[in-house]
């Protein structure tokens, strides 16, 4: 517990700072208790409850820009961690059979309990080194082409697809442009629309623009409570529209990027609750909550025919858009 509070305090977000005091108190209590001077079990229990309650309180009132911070939290569970917790017998499949393997987007085959499924997702790193290797989860065209290749395996052998979305966007690099970032994403969109197998997308962290959508056209799109999904980052939006990246908070509000907003807009089908204090406070539990939501949404889809699955997906995205006509 000592360790936990220290670890957490080290990466505490601004708005979590009120918890720091409580954690410090908890540390004192446990220190005293560990030294054997006093029996503090009850006090510790109470303090823990207080912390939990404070956390719950804080997390129930997050502003959009605070949610952005949670969605980007360094300790937020990554795709490979979710895969590890949710599935068994994972075999990672590499490469687009064209140019490269992209570590920013991982794919593979796995078992969801007894079901054979294809899994994929953006992969961020934990350390700087890892993040450079993973390109901070920003995929190159090869990532999207690998995903498409593996989606086609799913289709050929009639297995459902589960994707995990967590990227600030597709990588904006020279090579990425040269090798057709636009083409790769566009083709994925068209091909995802035509998939004959059930497809569930889960927005687990940052859902950044075309880079997110590039593996995101699920029959069902689920979203973690404190994930975000938007056409451009709040900073990007602010620097363009308000000529000031620091007004990202306004942009975050204006663009409607939180899970409840997106549920209301019909872009997302279901919100998956996060543990108290956000996914980073309990990765395993988060994974288990995701798993339950996947199974709940997947099972009805398994009963649909190929045609029905395509129609279901087509209708879902076909109706997106708000306009006037008279």
């Amino acid at each position, binding site marked *: 517990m000592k360790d936990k509070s220290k670890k957490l305090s080290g990466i505490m977000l601004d708005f979590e700072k009120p918890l720091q005091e409580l954690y410090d108190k908890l540390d004192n209590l446990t220190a005293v208790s560990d030294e054997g001077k006093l029996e503090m079990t009850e006090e510790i229990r109470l303090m823990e409850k207080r912390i939990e309650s404070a956390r719950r309180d804080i997390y129930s009132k997050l502003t959009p820009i605070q949610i952005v911070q949670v969605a980007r939290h360094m300790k937020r569970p990554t795709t490979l961690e979710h895969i590890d917790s949710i599935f068994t017998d994972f075999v990672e499949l590499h490469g687009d059979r064209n140019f490269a393997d992209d570590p920013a987007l991982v794919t593979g085959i796995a078992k969801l309990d007894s079901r054979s499924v294809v899994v994929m997702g953006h992969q961020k790193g934990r350390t700087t080194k890892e993040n450079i290797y993973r390109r901070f989860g920003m995929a190159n065209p090869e990532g999207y082409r690998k995903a498409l290749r593996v989606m086609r395996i799913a289709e050929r052998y009639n297995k459902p697809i589960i994707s995990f979305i967590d990227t600030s*966007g*597709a*990588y*904006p*690099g*020279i090579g*990425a*442009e*040269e*090798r*057709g*970032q*636009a*083409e790769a*994403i*566009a*083709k994925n*969109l*068209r*091909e995802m*629309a*035509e998939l004959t197998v059930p497809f569930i997308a889960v927005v687990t962290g940052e859902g950044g*623009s*075309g880079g997110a*959508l*590039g593996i*995101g*056209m699920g029959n069902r799109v689920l979203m973690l409570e404190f994930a975000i*999904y*938007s*056409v*451009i980052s709040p900073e*990007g*939006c602010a*620097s*363009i*529209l*308000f000529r000031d990246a620091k007004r990202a908070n306004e942009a975050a509000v*204006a*663009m*409607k*990027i939180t899970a409840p907003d*997106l549920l209301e*807009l019909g*872009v997302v089908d279901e919100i998956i609750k996060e543990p108290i204090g956000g996914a980073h406070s309990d990765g395993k539990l988060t994974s288990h909550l995701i798993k339950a939501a996947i199974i709940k949404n997947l099972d009805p889809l398994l009963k649909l025919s190929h045609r029905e699955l395509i129609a279901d*997906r*087509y209708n879902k*995205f*076909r109706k*997106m*858009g*708000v*306009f*006037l*006509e*008279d």
Partner: protein
Amino acid sequence: MSIHEWFKRKQKAKEPVQTRERLDIPGNLWVKCYKCGQAIFSRDLEANLKVCPKCQYHFRLTAGERIRQLVDEGTFKEIDPKVRSRDFLEFKDSRPYAKRIEASILKSSLSDAIVTGTCQIAKQPAALGIMDFSFMGGSMGSVVGEKIARLIELACEKKLPVIILSASGGARMQEGIMSLMQMAKTSAALGKLRETGLPYVSICTDPTTGGTSASYAMLGDINIAEPNALIGFAGPRVIEQTIRQKLPPGFQRSEYLLEHGMIDVVCHRKELRLTLSRILNWFNER
């Protein structure tokens, strides 16, 4: 991400917008080429399909100009002219989105950044969508997506090939996530077209970037580009900021994309109608 660019370009490189305005003013008989500086008599420029006779710079065109240049006279029948944008997010930056729409409609006499319809090109029927950069930088919101989806569905029903001319800075930020979803919607419609066995020709004109390039603009059975058009996913400035490095010359221009395998034909505006008619004829005849 690349709508980014659109705004920045709007502030800095005002050239194409100005051009249009100048040409619209009667009595403004001379135009200066934005690339080579050549003074061109307006009527000559018009007669030359708005291509600089000296340096071949392709000026941007309005949807109306495109129709006049490409389509058999009198055959264009617009569909869905009344679909208009709605400020459903009540989005406000320096100005409310609702006001922006209003102003753009007034200024351009378009209902949004795309005109769609059926037509004949060299006597061959086609479903045609033409984006117009002068309407909010050709940005793709719900209206553009809806009109494209309807155009494609009409093509499926009437068994027509689809042609879309893109000219767009990308997604329309003021519609938030919904503009992103138009990428999915239009691409899905193209998937249906493909399944129906009907061809699609994409024509990328300056600029074709962001969400537009990452959806319908790159999905042609055949992708055509006008010379020197800016075509890409991320905007040049975003890339420079990310990689902290200068971009190579010609980067994200039509010829560059041809070399990198993304474009089938870089087609001078004078050849565009002929090329299109050959392609349509090829698809039509057994």
